C-alpha cells in the first residue's frame, strides 16, 4: 500500500508535517503530495537507490563486534522522507543558538579564571569543585579570543505544544555533521525533482566554514596555517567523520603517534620530509587521552607534551581542553541563568525544566516521582546511564533511587517530553516516529550555525532513543523559505 495520509494517525504528539490526521501543514502539502503519488514499486526503487548510494559513497559508522572479527563498518541508516523546518522558525532558533553558545564560552572562560559567576552567587561553587569535567590543568589558560567551545552540537527537541527546547549541549567532541552533509548529497541524487518544488537552503558550506574557524585560531599569522584532524584511529565509531572532514578541508588526518612536541614547545607532525610544524589541531579525542603527561598516563592515543604546547600558546586545540565543564548536565540547568548573567538577555530557546538532585527539595520531588521523570547521569552521552521512568520497571527505578541517594551530584531529572514526530517510511507506508535535531555552531572570529543540522529519528515505534548506536536513523533536514518563489 502506498502512502495514504488519511491513514497517518496524528494523536497526542506534535507532528512536523501534519497538523492533524490527513491535514498537512500548508507548506508541506507539495511534499506530502509528492510522496503519496509514488506507488509501492516506485517507493521501493527510491529507497533501494538511497541505500545503494549510501553503500557506494561509503557512508558508514563503526561498531565493534567480537564475532565479526573486530570492528565493522555499518552503513548509515537513512530515511528518505525529509524533515522540514520553515526559515522563519529557523532564523529564531539560529539566533537562540548563537546567544547560547556565546554565553557558554563566557561561562567556561570565567570558570577557568576569576569565577565571577560563583562569587556573585549565581552558580554554586561546589558544583564546579565536584565536576568530573573541570580540568584544573586549564586554570588561567587564555585560548585565542577567549573561545573554548569552537564547535558545539546542541540537541533540540520539540514538545507536544510545538515549543523547541535545548535538551543538551555537546561541547567536547560532538559528532554527526558529516552525516548531515552526506544525507543531503544522497537526497539530491535520489529526489532531484523535489529540489525544484522547494527553495531549500544549502548545507554544504560547512567544511569551508569549519576550515575558516580553525584557521582563525592559528597562533602563527600566515595565510596557510597547518591544520590537522586528530583521530583516535580506525576503531573509533566516528572514524568515517574524521576522515571525511579532513578530506573536505584538505587537512591531514593524523593519529597521536604522528605528532610530537619539540623542545621549543611547538607541535610537529612526522612527515617523510621530516618534522613539519602544526598550528591548529581539530582534536576528536577526549580530554583525558590528549596528553599522557598531563592526564591519563596510559593513553596511547595522545601526544606527550601537548598540553604544554597549548598552555604556552604554540598550538590551538579545538575544542579547548576543559570545555566539557559546561556540557555537564548539572551545569546545563544553569545555562539560562548564565545567559542572563553574562549577556543581560533572556534566553531565546528554553531549557527543558531540570531538577537538581543536589538540592534537597528537588531531590525529594525526584525520588517521589520517578515514574514520571527521566533521570540522566550528569556526564554520560549517547543515551547511556539513563532511566526513562514511565517505561522502566520498578526494579530499575529502585536501582536509580539508590544511585541518586548515593551520589546526588551525578544525576538530574527532567519531565518526560513527548517528542514530536515526523512521517517515516515503514515498509511502503508512512508512520510517525520521534525525532530530534542536532545543529552545529562554530565559534571563531565569527559565529556560524549550520542550516538545520542532523535530524536523528528513532526507527522503533514509540521509542525516543535516536542514537545510531542504539537503533536510530537519520533524515535530510530542510530549511525552506516559504516566502521565496
Amino acid at each position: 500500500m502506498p502512502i495514504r495520509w488519511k491513514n497517518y494517525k496524528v494523536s497526542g504528539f506534535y507532528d512536523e508535517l501534519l497538523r492533524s490526521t490527513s491535514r498537512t501543514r500548508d507548506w508541506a502539502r507539495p511534499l506530502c503530495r509528492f510522496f503519496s503519488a509514488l506507488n509501492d514499486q516506485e517507493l521501493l526503487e527510491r529507497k533501494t537507490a538511497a541505500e545503494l548510494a549510501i553503500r557506494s559513497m561509503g557512508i558508514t559508522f563503526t561498531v565493534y563486534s567480537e564475532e565479526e572479527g573486530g570492528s565493522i563498518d555499518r552503513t548509515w541508516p537513512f530515511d528518505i522522507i525529509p524533515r522540514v523546518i520553515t526559515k522563519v522558525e529557523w532564523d529564531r532558533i539560529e539566533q537562540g543558538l548563537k546567544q547560547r553558545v556565546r554565553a557558554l564560552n563566557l561561562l567556561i572562560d570565567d570558570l577557568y579564571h576569576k569565577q565571577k559567576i560563583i562569587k556573585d552567587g549565581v552558580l554554586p561553587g561546589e558544583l564546579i569543585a565536584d565536576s568530573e569535567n573541570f580540568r584544573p590543568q586549564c586554570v588561567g589558560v587564555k585560548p585565542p579570543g577567549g573561545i573554548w567551545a569552537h564547535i558545539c552540537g546542541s540537541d533540540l527537541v520539540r514538545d507536544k505544544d510545538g515549543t523547541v527546547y535545548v535538551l543538551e549541549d555537546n561541547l567536547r567532541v560532538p559528532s554527526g555533521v558529516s552525516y548531515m552533509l552526506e544525507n543531503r548529497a544522497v537526497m539530491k541524487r535520489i529526489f532531484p525533482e523535489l529540489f525544484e518544488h522547494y527553495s531549500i537552503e544549502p548545507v554544504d558550506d560547512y567544511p569551508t566554514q569549519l576550515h575558516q574557524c580553525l584557521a582563525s585560531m592559528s597562533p602563527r599569522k600566515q595565510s596557510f596555517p597547518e591544520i590537522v584532524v586528530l583521530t583516535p584511529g580506525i576503531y573509533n565509531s566516528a572514524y568515517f567523520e574524521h576522515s571525511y572532514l579532513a578530506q573536505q578541508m584538505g587537512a591531514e588526518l593524523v593519529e597521536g603517534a604522528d605528532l610530537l612536541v619539540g623542545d621549543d614547545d611547538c607541535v610537529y607532525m612526522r612527515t617523510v620530509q621530516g618534522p613539519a610544524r602544526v598550528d591548529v589541531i581539530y582534536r576528536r579525542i577526549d580530554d583525558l587521552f590528549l596528553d599522557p603527561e598531563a592526564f591519563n598516563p596510559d593513553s596511547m592515543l595522545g601526544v606527550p607534551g601537548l598540553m604544554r604546547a597549548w598552555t604556552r600558546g604554540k598550538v590551538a586545540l579545538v575544542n579547548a581542553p576543559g570545555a566539557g565543564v559546561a556540557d555537564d548536565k548539572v551545569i546545563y540547568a544553569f545555562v539560562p541563568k548564565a545567559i542572563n548573567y553574562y549577556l543581560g538577555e533572556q534566553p531565546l530557546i528554553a531549557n527543558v525544566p531540570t531538577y537538581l538532585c543536589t538540592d534537597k527539595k528537588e531531590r525529594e520531588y525526584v525520588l517521589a516521582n520517578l515514574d514520571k521523570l527521566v533521570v540522566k547521569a550528569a556526564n554520560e552521552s549517547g543515551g547511556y546511564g539513563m532511566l526513562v521512568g514511565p517505561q522502566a520497571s520498578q526494579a530499575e527505578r529502585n536501582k536509580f533511587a539508590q544511585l541518586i541517594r548515593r551520589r546526588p551530584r551525578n544525576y538530574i531529572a527532567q519531565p518526560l517530553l513527548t517528542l514530536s514526530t515526523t512521517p517515516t517510511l515503514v515498509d511502503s507506508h508512512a508512520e510517525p516516529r520521534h525525532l530530534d535535531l542536532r545543529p552545529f555552531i562554530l565559534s571563531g572570529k565569527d559565529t556560524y550555525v549550520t542550516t538545520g543540522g542532523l535530524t536523528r529519528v528513532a526507527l522503533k515505534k514509540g521509542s525516543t532513543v535516536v542514537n545510531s548506536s542504539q537503533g536510530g536513523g537519520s533524515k535530510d533536514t530542510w530549511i525552506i523559505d516559504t516566502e521565496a518563489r
Partner: protein
Amino acid sequence: MLSRVAQRIYWLARYLERAENTARMVNVNAHLLLDLPKKLPLGWAPLIEITGSTELFSDCFAEANERNVVRFLIADPRNSGCLLNSLSAARENARTIRDIIPREGWEIINALYLDTRAALPGALAQKRRFAFLRSVMGDIQRLNGLFAGSMLRDAGYSFLRMGRNLERADMATRMVDVRSENLLLEGSEELLPFERIQWMSVLQSLSAYQSYIQKVQGPVRRRAAVRFLLQDPDFPRAFLHCSEQVKACLQTLPNNDAPVRFVNRISRIRRARPDEMSAKQLHDYIDRLQLNLARLDSLIAKTYFAYD
C-alpha cells in the same frame, strides 16, 4: 606526506606482493611434482625453507607433506607469513589510507580478504586449489593495474613501488638460494633429465619463464637461470632490476643520500658471477644479499618512517 601514511603504503605493497608470491609458488610446485618421479627427494619441504619458516613449521606439523605444507603456507593462523595473514595485513594497512589509494582499490582488497577467508580451508582441496590461487593472484594483479592507472606519481606512489620491489628482490634471492641447493644434483646421472623441468618451474615460480626464453634464447639451464633471476636488468622480478627500481623511487624522495648510496652498493651485483660459484659460495653470497635487503628496509624506515 605523513610518515605513517608512507609506511602503510609501503607495507600494503609488500604484503600484497607476498601473498601473490606465495600463491604462485604453491601452484607451480604442485605442477612440478606431477612431472617428477615419485622417488625424487624433493616434494613440499623446500617451500617451507623458501619462506624461512622451517622451525615454526616443525613445531606445528610432524611431516612436510602436501596437505600440511599447503595449509601452513595458505591458511594457518600460526604462520604470520601465510597468504591469509598477508591479505589481512594488507587490508589493515589499506584501511587507514583509504583516502590515498583509489577507492575501488580498498573495495577490492576488502573483498579479497573477506572472500578468501570465507573460502578457506575448503578451497585447499586439490581439485579446487589451482583455480582458487589463480584468482587470488588475478585480484592482486588487478590492484597493481589499478594503482598504476590511477595514482598520483607522488611520494606515496614511490613508497608503493619500493615496497613491491623489495619484496620481489627478497623472493628472488630465497628462490634461487633454496632451489640451487636442492637442485644441485651434480653427478646424479639418473636425475639429469629432470634438471631442466625443475629449473623451468623455478622460473615459473617467479613468472620468469617466458621472459627467460625470449631473452636467453637457449634451453633452461641452471647457470643461465641463476644469472637471469639475479642479474637481469630488464626482468621485473630479477634482483638487479628491483634494486634499480628502488633507487629510482628513492631519487624522487627527500633526504635520500644514505639510502641511495646503499642501493648503489647492492646493485654491484651486476658485476658478480653467481653462476660460477660453488653451492657453498652461492649460498653465502645470497645470505649477504638478503642481509643487505634487510638493512635497506631498516634504512628506509629510519629515514622516512622514524617514530623517534
